[in-house]
């Protein structure tokens, strides 16, 4: 059964149904969109139950010739890493649809177009994690920018056009570097047993170290822009500032993960030697991102920008875990990708509800929400606790794995990064105090608390955050084999306990 194609097809079918609906029937459009995304989720979960978790080979593979003259295939397949990210994405999309039920209303275009964009984006999100043909991956990688561009530029707020253009150009620039590297790989492969874009075939290529280093950088810079790594991050706060909360969730929660996913799937697999060469530099950038993102978050006055900067810090953790080259670091980084999706979703969605009710995203405009809108305030608090990685919540497990996994090989980096947990307490508790505590600031007296739809939308996110904090095994069991496989392929094994030289 072609599970992955099926997954990608369902949202497209949904857009077809939406397309034939009359523009005025917005309610029906929303319901179809929600139903479609729920069907995708159900199908994903059905597929996940059939996943053999101890098998490190790609599963559910499909391969069809697409452009035979260039050796381009429509080829899909997933391992534990891609499965986890696809599951995360397909849970987040219906949450976003339900949470942002009224989001598209203020847009430049119709409600119908909004959901068409979301559904098309969902297809691409699945495709980008499942592609095993480099060309196919590149096409989706770039094509994904288009729906996001329209979602920000068409339905966002404030400086939406400017932010959308900045996002697009910045990403295209990275994509261009990657395209050059992909073409070079293709050319090299033609001299080594046949031109191909097949990921598995390309990963065995012989290259001089200069070539490998240059091509690695082509990929890595593209991914470092996506996953925003310092200093390539400045597009993100602007984009998050202007996008609707739902779009921000998909942008930071899913699309940015393509960056860290790509580092594992493409950088490490295709260029193992270059990866090792650049590891010291990348680890330093990752540590800088952790602290820099956190400090900048502390300094923000705008709630949306604050959340965006916390993500920069979190992506620093993920990148550090990936390049620590230990099983704990690697599994932790992958789990972090999953958990970050939900904690960021919770922050953006609840923050978004606060902002739309108040009509302002300036933190100082809030105050005393805990007494006016208790449910909303406590949900925001819980989301914040997840973001600062409170033990017992999901992000603690991944953050600690990354730290301990980094420590065994790079203790200095891990120690410096750990200071991020104190900064995290500040960047969460400062907005919590300003927005939720203290006396009620004028203009807040009549805000309404979460309604039933909003509660239903956020409940699964909160449930995942809490349950995976205590019981992450179902995910780790899927992630571990894939992670140790990558580490082993690179010729690394976990450092043995050193008793300090006794």
């Amino acid at each position, binding site marked *: 059964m072609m599970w992955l194609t099926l997954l990608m097809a369902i949202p497209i079918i949904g857009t077809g149904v939406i397309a034939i609906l009359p523009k005025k029937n917005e309610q029906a459009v929303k319901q179809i969109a929600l139903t479609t995304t729920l069907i995708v989720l159900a199908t994903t979960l059905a597929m996940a139950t059939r996943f053999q978790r101890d098998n490190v080979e790609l599963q559910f593979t499909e391969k069809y010739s697409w452009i035979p003259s260039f050796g381009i295939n429509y080829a899909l397949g997933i391992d534990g890493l891609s499965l986890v990210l696809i599951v995360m994405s397909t849970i987040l999309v219906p949450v976003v649809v339900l949470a942002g039920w009224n989001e598209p209303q203020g847009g430049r275009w119709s409600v119908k177009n909004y959901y068409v964009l979301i559904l098309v984006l969902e297809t691409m999100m699945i495709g980008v994690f499942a592609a095993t043909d480099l060309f196919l991956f590149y096409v989706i990688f770039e094509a994904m920018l288009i729906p996001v561009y329209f979602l920000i530029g068409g339905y966002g707020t404030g400086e939406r056009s400017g932010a959308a253009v900045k996002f697009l150009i910045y990403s295209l620039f990275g994509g261009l570097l990657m395209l050059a590297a992909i073409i*070079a790989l293709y050319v090299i492969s033609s001299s080594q047993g046949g031109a191909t874009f097949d990921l598995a075939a390309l990963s065995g290529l012989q290259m001089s170290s200069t070539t490998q280093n240059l091509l690695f950088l082509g990929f890595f810079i593209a991914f470092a822009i996506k996953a925003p790594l310092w200093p390539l991050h400045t597009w993100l706060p602007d984009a998050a500032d202007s996008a609707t909360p739902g779009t921000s969730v998909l942008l930071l929660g899913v699309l940015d993960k393509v960056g860290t996913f790509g580092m594992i799937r493409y950088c490490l697999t295709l260029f193992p030697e270059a990866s090792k060469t650049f590891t010291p530099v990348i680890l330093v950038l990752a540590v800088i991102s952790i602290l820099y993102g956190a*400090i900048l978050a502390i300094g923000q006055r705008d709630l949306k920008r604050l959340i965006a900067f916390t993500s920069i810090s979190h992506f620093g953790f993920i990148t550090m875990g990936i390049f620590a080259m230990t099983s704990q670091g690697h599994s932790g980084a992958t789990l972090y990708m999953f958990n970050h999706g939900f904690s960021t979703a919770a922050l953006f969605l609840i923050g978004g509800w606060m902002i739309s009710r108040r009509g302002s995203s300036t933190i100082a405009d809030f105050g005393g929400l805990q007494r006016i809108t208790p449910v909303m305030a406590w949900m925001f608090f819980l989301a914040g606790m997840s973001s600062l990685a409170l033990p017992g919540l999901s992000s603690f497990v991944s953050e600690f794995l990354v730290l*301990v996994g980094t*420590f065994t090989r790079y203790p200095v980096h891990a120690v410096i990064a750990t200071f991020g*947990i*104190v900064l995290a307490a500040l960047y969460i508790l400062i907005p919590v105090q300003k927005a939720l505590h203290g006396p009620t600031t004028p203009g807040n007296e009549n805000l309404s608390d979460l309604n039933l739809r909003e509660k239903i939308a956020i409940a699964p996110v909160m449930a995942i955050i809490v349950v995976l904090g205590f019981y992450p*095994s179902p995910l780790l069991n899927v992630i*571990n084999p894939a992670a140790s496989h990558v580490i082993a392929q690179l010729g690394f094994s976990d450092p043995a306990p050193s*008793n300090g030289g006794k």
Partner: protein
Amino acid sequence: MMMNSTSIVYLIALPLAGAVILLLAGRRSDKWGHLLATALCASSFFVGLYQLSLMFNRPSQERPVSQKLFEWISVGTFKIDAGLLLDQLSICFVLLITGVGTLIHIYSISYMAHDPHRRRFFAFLNLFIAAMLLLVLGDSYLNLYVGWEGVGLASYLLIGFWNEKPAYATASKKAFVMNRIGDMGLSFAIMIAFATMGTVSFIGVQAAVEQTSTPVLTGIGIMLLVAAIGKSAQFPLQAWLGDAMAGPTPVSALIHAATMVTAGVYLITRSNFIFDAAPTAQLLVVIVGAITLMFGALIGTAKDDIKKALAASTMSQIGYMILCAGLGPVGYAFAIMHLLTHGFFKAGMFLGAGSVMHGMNDEVNMRKYGALRKAMPITFVTFGLGYLAILGIPPFAGFYSKDMIIETAFNAGGSKGIILGIVTLLGAGITAFYMTRVMILTFTGTPRWDEKAQPHESPWLMWLPMAVLAIGSATSGYLLSSNDSLVKWLSPLFESHEEHHELLPPIIVSALALVMVAIGVAIAFLKYSRREIDAVAPKNVSIFTRIAREDLMQDRLNEAVFMRPGQELTKTLVKTDAVIIDGAVRAVGRLTIATGLSLRRVQNGFVRSYAAFILMGALAMIVAIWVVVQ
């Protein structure tokens, strides 16, 4: 092989269930939430008693039991079970936490009766009990860590329970952040342990100590000490405890006196195998304890706010415990003994303070008290018993536990022993002074009340727990030390130690301590009992008093060294990000546009120039690819 138990988890699960039910049910549980929470806390106490009875019936080596719940985290060799360990040490804490906890639940039913959010208060109390129990029952450092931060969270929620007042909200944030600095130490300790020993379970680490080098053990020990400093409000991370009095008074009694702040003592005692093998770390523990016990005592002499005076005293008393824990192996059991007796008398005095505030319209300034002895006889008696206990008057609890610490300090040997002995004796004297001051200002003399104040005794739901704790303050020291019962109970956990030489015989130590106490009491009487107390704190006081009133300037120091530079750094980086990093991005954008505008001239419509450009472009591409492929 340790015995398995299937019932340890109920200790934690009962109060946790209470917290979850009350928080999820919301206002629907307003009517019965406090009763459920109290009942669940009490049930947990009875489970604890049941466990204790089981333990009694087993020979001492078979007393510890464990329970594995499920596999929590497993990646490579990093395998952590959600596992619990109940041994002679943790059962002491379990009974203290749930016992004092239940009393404070009962007290709060009445104390918080008029608060519209009483249900939420009880939910947080239950959450705290569950987290604290996890802290003392986890079988590995990482499980302990979950409880460790869990109590930090509960403490944050309860300090900020009335967070509509900005100062209270700030106090709760300060507590959380300073605690997190300590937590970072715990993270480091866990990381070092895993990297060097390959395990973070208590049993595993204990077994690995022998094969581990001293520098590593010292490193782990120091990091554990950092963690303890944060949680137990020891120097230099003590500044949050005074502000934590923003929480409702039962919280101060439970969390900031009897239980959470003792977690650092637990951590050091639990890690006895590390500290025994790392003398440098041990010495640092002693130094931190000694500094804090003086620090807290000095602050205590200058506070007019009854809760802050008691908080300073807590800091000082925990300093005693930390100091003593640093004098292991002989000191561990005595640290725990003082921890238990302190749990009774300090909780009792805090509840007494709450009772006074209850009768005085929430006034906390002792200069506005006076002569409350007659209006609140029960509070006076129960508080008084706590007072006698903390002073160490025989036969009250502190006499036994504090004397053992002073004795242990003197017997530490060499100049270290003499210095520590003098410090602990001085501390006892200062304690006697500031506690007598509290007694005089509050209960004796002439009334200095506000006009509206109508002091009255608190209802029985409040004084009953106070009475129980007062009985504990009177008797616990004798019970725990007769026949060396606590020391013998705990001894299988700690390395046996050779008898130290005795610098001073116990009877001399007790006599010296009593002399110091008498001096402290006498000075307080001379200073406060013989003349009128100013209703407003006098301004023209010595520099020392002013410094003590300002908590020995620790806040000022923290602000000058960390907070303000941090704020400056944040501001600078925010500006740098916008101007330099994003500025560079925008500059590239502008450059591109400018280039485009000038290149537009090239679009001149001549086919021959287009052909030339195409040719040049193609050549460049070929060269580029050739370079790459080479």
